[in-house]
Structures are given as C-alpha cells and as structure tokens.
C-alpha cells in the first residue's frame, strides 16, 4: 500500500474532484491509501507519505510552508494541474499592481494577505512529476498511479494538442474554419477536447514552454490576429492558464 497525501493550495478544486475520481478504481484503491487530504479525511496534518499530490498554486507564506513540509514528508511529489504546474488562471493578475487588484474586489483590501503573483509549486520545491490540465484528466492521473505502483512512470510525451487532434481524426479548426485556436502552442493531455467540440483550444493545459521563444510567440500572436482576434484578446488568451510560461518565454528567461 502506498500512502498518498493531497495538498491543496490556491485553485478551484476541480483537480481534487478528478483525484477523487481516480480513486474510484478498484486497482487504485487496492494499491493506494489516501492518508491525508483535508477534503476527504479528518486528518489535520500530513504524515510521511509515498506520494504527495499537490494541487493549486502557491499564493502565500502559509502555502510555501505547506509545500515545503510536503516535500520533506513525501518520497515523490507530483504537481497536479495547471495551477500547480504553471501558476494557473489566477496568474492573470501578473502585471497589475496587487493593491489595485485587491481594491477592485474587496472593500477592505488590508484584510487580504497574498503574493502579488502566485507561484507554480516547482518555484518553491523540487517536483518529481508534473501533470498539467485545468483540471487534470483523472484518467491520466490514474495512469500515473498505475505505472507508479509498478515502479515506473508514464513515458513523457512533449507534444501539442494538435497531436491528439490529428490522432482523433479531427480537422484543424484554424485551417478549415479560420477559428483561432491555441492547440499548436498548448501542452497535449486533454485529448483535443475543444476542437472535438468544433471550437478553438483556449490553452488550459498551459503553453508549450519547452518549444517556444519570444519570436515564435509573437508570430503565433500575429496569426491569431490574422484570424480575427484583437491583439489584447490574443495576448490575454495566450497568458490565460500558463501565464508563468508566457512570462518566462516573453522575458526569454529559460526554456
């Protein structure tokens, strides 16, 4: 039996539900035991675990401590979901003054204590495996758990949403309909959901940070504009769910 801890940071909890779904399979229940998950069990502190699933982005000192403690207690740490892997949708606030942001939402901004920009988990601790997705695909998590239980890991494929789109026999919505789509620059993993509903991908698995640089992002932005988007909308769409990768690419920091 592997012990699993689920740590929740800033997120919508969609990934937590996908985790709950992955734990609906017999073979997973027979190999894993969730010993810590504030949503699922009355346990207030995480003990030693084999696998820590960390969901959400790091938004405060408190989170930072949680994450470090998890690292210390877990043999294997998985960043689960686009929030944990890349910062997630809440990073859309990056670039705006945090006080302006607070004031826009709260009458008493001084009550609110958060980082200017949320951090991906890997900015705070070493992460052993990353599963992006907003939310992650519970089946992909199940696959990971099955392979981990065998001592291995899923083979990592670094590809665009287009790979799944073509393998599903879908027709490219950009080429055949002129619909703006982030598929070409977005991490695969969703199984090309949006194109299969005839719409453009909006990038919820995060930008393909490993393959892009500033110039390429710029050409891609121009392509979106060519397809009828305003520049602001195009940039906002690209920032969307993987802002962390967007900003590092734009700043040319790392690849």
């Amino acid at each position, binding site marked *: 039996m592997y012990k699993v801890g689920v740590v929740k940071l800033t997120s919508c909890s969609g990934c937590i539900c996908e985790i709950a779904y992955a734990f609906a399979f017999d073979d997973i229940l027979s190999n894993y035991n969730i010993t810590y998950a504030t949503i699922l069990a*009355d346990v207030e502190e995480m003990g030693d675990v084999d696998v820590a699933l960390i969901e959400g982005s790091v938004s405060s000192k408190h*989170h930072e401590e949680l994450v470090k403690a998890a690292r210390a207690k877990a043999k294997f740490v998985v960043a689960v979901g686009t929030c944990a892997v890349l910062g997630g949708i809440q990073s859309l606030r990056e670039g705006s003054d945090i006080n302006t942001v607070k004031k826009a939402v709260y009458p008493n901004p001084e009550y609110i204590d958060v980082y200017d920009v949320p951090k991906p988990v890997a900015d705070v601790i070493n992460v052993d495996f990353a599963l992006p997705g907003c939310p992650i695909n519970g089946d992909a998590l199940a696959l990971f758990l099955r392979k981990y239980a065998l001592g291995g890991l899923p083979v990592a494929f670094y590809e665009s949403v287009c790979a799944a789109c073509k393998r599903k026999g879908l027709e490219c919505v950009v080429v055949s309909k002129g619909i703006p789509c982030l598929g070409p620059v977005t991490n695969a993993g969703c199984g090309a959901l949006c194109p299969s509903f005839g719409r453009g991908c909006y990038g919820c698995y995060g930008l393909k940070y490993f393959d892009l640089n500033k110039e390429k992002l710029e050409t891609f932005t121009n392509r979106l504009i060519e397809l009828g988007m305003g520049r602001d909308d195009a940039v906002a769409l690209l920032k969307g769910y993987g802002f962390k990768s967007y900003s590092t690419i734009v700043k040319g920091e790392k690849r």
Partner: protein
Amino acid sequence: MIENMKSVLTRVEGEGNIVIYEKEGHVDSVKYEVIEAPRFFEFFVRGKSPDKVVDIVSRICGICGTSYNFVASTAFERCFGVNVDPEIMAVKEAQHLAERVKSHILHVFHLNLPDLVNTKSVVEFIPRNPQLSKRALEVLVWSRRAMEVLGGRMHNVVNIKIGGVHRVPEKSEVEKVAKDLGTVMKSFIEFASFVLSLKAPDEFMQKTSVKPHLVALYPSTLEYPHHSDKVCMDGNVYSLSEFYGNIVKYLHVPHSTAIHCRVKGTESYVVGPIARFNQFYNRLSKEVRDFIETYGWKAPLSNVLQSFVARIAETYETLLMLEKFFDTYRTRPAPSTAIPEKGEFTCEYAVEAPRGILYHKYVVRDGKVVMGDIIAPTTQNVAAMDDIATTVLRGKKVDAGVVDMARKIAVSFDPCLSCSVHALPVKIIRV
C-alpha cells in the same frame, strides 16, 4: 466593519478554519474563517470579451464550474438579445444537470456520509461497505461520462457558449450514456435508500429554533428551481436586481476572504438544497416525493444537518429530468452567435448551483466586460453558518463534541468541496 457596499464582489471555496470564541470555558460564538487565498476573478474578467469570460469564470469553482459558465453565458444571451433555440438550451441545461448529479453524489458520499456513519473519512467507509460504495461510485462515474459526452469533461466543460453550445453531440454519442441511465438509476436508489435510512445527528438542533431566511430561485415554469431571473425568499418573490441590489447587504469581515451577505445587513439567509426543497417540495415529481416519504422524510426539513435528504431528492429529480432530455434528444447544427461590438449592456442572471443561488452581473461596454460581480452560494451561506453554529453551540462547554458539531454544521452546508473541508482545522480563541 463596512456595511452596505455597492458593487461588492465575492469569492468562495478553498481553505477555511473554524474559529470558536470561548468565554470561561464555554462557547461564546463560532465563526468560519475562509482563509483561501483569493484569486480575483472579478478583477481579471475586466477588459476581456464576454465569450472569453464564459470560459474563465468556470474556473472559479471546480466542482460546479458548469454553473458558472451556464449563468454567465445566459446572462450575456439575455442582455444581447440572443435567441436560443429551446433544444439547444436544453443541451446547455443538461450539462448543468449532470453536474448537479456529480456534485450531490460527491457531497453525500465523500463528505457527508462519514458523519452519518461515524467514520473519519470515506476512505474508511469503502472497505466497510464495498457494495454500497460501488453503487455511489457508479453514479459518480456515470455523471462523469454524461458530462464528457455533453460538455467534454467532468469539470470545466468546454461546450457552453453565448448562444448555447459549440456543438450538439451526435445522437449516437448521447445514446452511449443514455442507455446506462436505467442501471444507474438502480444504483442510485440502492445508495439513496441506505442514506435515507440513516438518522441525522440532530440532538443540538432540535432544542433551538434557528430560523434564517430560506432563499431559492423562483422558477418561471412549474419545474423545480433551476435557473431564473427571480428570487423567492420565504414565499415572497423579488427580481434579481431588487434582491441583490437592495435587500442583501454585503460585509467584509476581517476573519474571512469571503464577503458575508445578510438581509438588511443583519439577518442571515440560507441558499441551496434545503432552501429549494423546503420552499418547492411540491414541484418535485411525485415519484421522488413518494420515495423520500417511504423513509419518513418530507418538507420542511427542520435543520441543516438534514440537507442530505434534499440532496438525495434533488439528485433523483435531476436524473428524471435527464431521462426526459435523453428521450427526446436529437442532434442539430449549433448556431453561431455574434457579440455586439458597440453599446453598453448590463447583464445579470442566476442559476441554482448545487450549493445554491449563483448570481452573476456584468457590465459590457463596446464588446468588453468592464465590471463583473459574482455572488456565489457559499458567500451567501457563511453568515448563516456563523449564526446557526453560534446559536446552537453558545453556552456549551468547549469540548470535542462542540468542535465536532461545528464541523458537521459546516459540512452539511457543503460550502464548496475545498472549503467545506471535512477537517477544518479548529482554532479555539479565548475572549
């Protein structure tokens, strides 16, 4: 404390604490602290085009994200004057209904059941009653498949847009889940029978009469509340803008990143299953009522710890609604919708999310959202949670039983999976 805020925005879910204020060893008051870091959706919907906002807001809540894109898209449709074909609307509604099934089952099975059967978690319960667990998980997995077929995935569906849906799935795709509905219904009944035969631990509640207002959407048809532009509080009907603009006042309290809502700034109110169930019991199908009544339950439920009964009834009703939807299902081309590039629009609408009324209001100017106001169910319930817990527990000796009850009250509200937190860490503060 600031009262009577205009344009106040809210957020919900996430991490929370129970804070028990203690006076000489006895409970003085109880507060639920939402400490989840805010994400500022109301800030970054600004400047975005309405169609993008529909996708963005679904990330406010992972459990009921479909409620968010449902209500946002419908709000925009109404103010832009987009006519949505009823059959297309039905596909959009069905995604939301499937989500309700998922959310209720998750709550009743994963969160509430452990309280009813006195285990620490569902993880402990599963080996104890694997057969029944299987039934619950079957319903959950089916709801996932239904959401996948209709909306792409179990969370943050991708098939809702202004004007309806992006694609109406093929009949053959829908058939794949529709054909299993019968079996799932059986699994559900088996699970529900078990749950309904359990007794809610209500010894505290019976002795006190805590009467927050009950608020649910007022359905325009004779159906059970689903989505609407009218609100019904204790039998009185208000327009959304009247209710959320004038009747409710918003308070930003130091112990919470969520805003509190109170009627006239003082009285708390409850939204969600129990508010719907108690006010609109007669609109449930007879089949559902008969089933509930076999186990000795009926409206009005006397306290919030019994809200699981309402959830079970609603799940049943929702499965029946989906059955009707599948029976007449046919595919058709999805319409394309143009968003007006010029002009100013105020858009508002509300839907009954699993946890209660979800109200959205946007101002759109020249094709861009300039203001977004989102009032989520939990935001509306936290004041009632504080009040109920305080009234029920005040004067009691602070011990494990008190803490446990405070926890149970929170759980029964299901203030959104992540902050309902079966294990809200407890802080005891001496006053």
